[in-house]
């Protein structure tokens, strides 16, 4: 979700271009009558209701289902296939339960902390337990006078809160106790995810910002561009993963024993479903089904394809053979990198971004990691952290209208108008977003991991680890052929 004062108009305008004529009339009628709608309006709810399009509602619901698909089974399989048989099930279990717990936390107080007005760093508890949310309340989009049912927005955002902590577990796979991990998840969502989501994504909304220009999250105010969560989701998870694997330590026999993926078939299924689901993640983040959503969709498609091709070419040159694991790793790197840029880039610049991200991630995953010998088991940092940073900074470039990008639009007037794009300024905004996210999540994660390590402990016994977490933590085997 791009959540900055600046760009919103892009959606706004393109919407005006895209809206059915009669709707336009309806809309401008409203506009003409009262400019932006006001919460004070007597006819407020009705007015909003009149600005909901069932095509958008369908798009948000199916996009939410697609993002859940990304977590279960996609991410679980992508990760699970890469570990040894004896730990397969523990990965599936961790992802499945993190998603479940995160969903409960989200509706309890997460949505309220992230998406209600409060300070610049965190929201309030006014919507805790979804107080006040009903089938007749609506959430703003990025277009003037366009709304979606609030429940659809709550559930779409929920799927993001579910997948982000699940991404982290790959960094310390095969060596973590289940219960402490679940506790970490709850704490990390509370102190890292919700604040950062609020900082990056909270704002008053296109029709209300005019009257409340300061009612925005901190990084939002810094005017960073992040269409679908490069900072909040990927950098956030990538850094937490890196901190985690450093604090938890290496697996037994790391570097000595060979640990080939137990099923690249599962990993390929996972990667493919991640690709499919990511369209809900990126194009769904537009919150409307219009030409801009279609742009985000095609950018997501081609950046991924380019990154997969790039990784294979590099492997061909480096090892003489392109591998499936390389192809899908590249694809995910491309998906991560295009996430913040998906609604800003043009298809051709998306391809370039995919190529670059693939190359940079390759260096971290296949070279630097092996040099530094830290055990980021499934390359959460190497792919999500690094790829997320490449994407976040690259957004400043590809968003430039001079390169066919969507630029940004000034939302402080009604209706919104295009703003003047200065790449250098934008790059600074992006640096702000990356820097704050890295520091905040790095510190919070370190504190939480240490606290758990010193209390409950994070690692199973050596024997349990050797036997595998499936049996020792869950009393099951993944396969009994």
């Amino acid at each position, binding site marked *: 979700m791009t959540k900055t004062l600046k760009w919103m108009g892009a959606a706004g305008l393109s919407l005006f271009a895209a809206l059915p004529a009669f709707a336009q009339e309806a809309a401008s009628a409203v506009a003409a009558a009262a400019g932006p709608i006001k919460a004070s309006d007597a006819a407020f709810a009705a007015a909003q209701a009149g600005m909901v399009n069932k095509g958008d509602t369908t798009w948000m619901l199916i996009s939410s289902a697609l993002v859940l698909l990304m977590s279960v089974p996609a991410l679980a399989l992508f990760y699970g296939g890469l570990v040894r048989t004896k730990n397969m099930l523990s990965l599936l279990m961790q992802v499945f339960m993190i998603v479940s717990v995160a969903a409960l936390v989200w509706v309890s107080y997460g949505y309220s902390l992230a998406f209600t007005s409060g300070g610049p760093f965190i929201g309030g508890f006014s919507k805790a337990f979804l107080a006040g949310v009903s089938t007749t309340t609506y959430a703003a989009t990025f277009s003037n006078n366009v709304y979606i049912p609030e429940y659809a927005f709550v559930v779409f955002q929920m799927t993001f809160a579910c997948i982000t902590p699940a991404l982290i577990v790959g960094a310390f796979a095969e060596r973590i106790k289940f219960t402490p991990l679940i506790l970490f998840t709850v704490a990390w969502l509370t102190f890292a995810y919700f604040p950062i989501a609020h900082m990056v994504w909270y704002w008053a909304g296109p029709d209300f910002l005019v009257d409340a220009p300061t009612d925005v999250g901190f990084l939002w105010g810094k005017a960073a561009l992040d269409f679908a969560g490069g900072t909040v989701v990927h950098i956030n998870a990538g850094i937490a993963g890196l901190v985690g694997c450093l604090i938890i330590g290496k697996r037994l026999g790391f570097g000595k024993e060979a640990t080939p993926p137990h099923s690249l078939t599962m990993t390929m299924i996972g990667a493919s479903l991640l690709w499919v689901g990511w369209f809900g993640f990126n194009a769904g983040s537009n919150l409307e089904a219009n030409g801009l959503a279609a742009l985000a969709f095609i950018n997501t498609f081609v950046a991924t394809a380019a990154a997969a091709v790039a990784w294979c070419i590099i492997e061909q040159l480096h090892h003489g053979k392109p591998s499936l694991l390389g192809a899908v790793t590249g694809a995910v790197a491309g998906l991560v990198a295009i996430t913040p840029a998906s609604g800003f880039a043009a298809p051709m610049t998306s391809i370039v971004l995919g190529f670059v991200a693939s190359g940079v991630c390759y260096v971290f995953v296949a070279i630097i990691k*092996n040099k530094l010998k830290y055990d980021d088991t499934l390359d959460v940092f190497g792919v999500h952290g690094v790829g997320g940073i490449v994407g976040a900074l690259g957004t400043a470039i590809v968003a430039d209208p001079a390169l066919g990008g969507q630029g940004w639009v000034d939302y402080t007037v009604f209706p919104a108008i295009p703003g003047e794009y200065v790449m250098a300024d934008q790059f600074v905004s992006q640096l702000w977003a990356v820097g704050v996210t890295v520091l905040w999540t790095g510190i919070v994660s370190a504190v939480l991991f240490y606290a758990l390590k010193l209390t409950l402990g994070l690692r199973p016994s050596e024997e349990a680890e050797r036997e595998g977490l499936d049996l020792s933590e869950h009393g099951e085997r993944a396969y009994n052929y």
Partner: protein
Amino acid sequence: MKYIIAIIKPHKLDEVREALAGQGVSGMTVTEVKGFGRQKGQTEVYRGAEYTTNMIPKIKIEVACSSDAAPSVIEAIQAAAETGSIGDGKIFELDLVGATRIRTGETDAAAL
């Protein structure tokens, strides 16, 4: 009686089976094993991490036969399993002091 254990390359199994049939060997038991020896395995690369395993997939064949038949059985296996390249495998011959056919209780020669 002899108990013959042969380690061969997997794709040679059918040929060996035919060769044994030619020797009138009515049965055998086959196991998938991993072999460690002179032969080096393919290098596998996963995200830049290289593995060169020396554990090569092999097929282990066990055949019980009369002592007289043993030499020709060994010959037949050797001829059929040979490719001339490293890793063709081994044939081991052990003494078999007794055999029983579970279905009938027949023993020794009659059991084979």
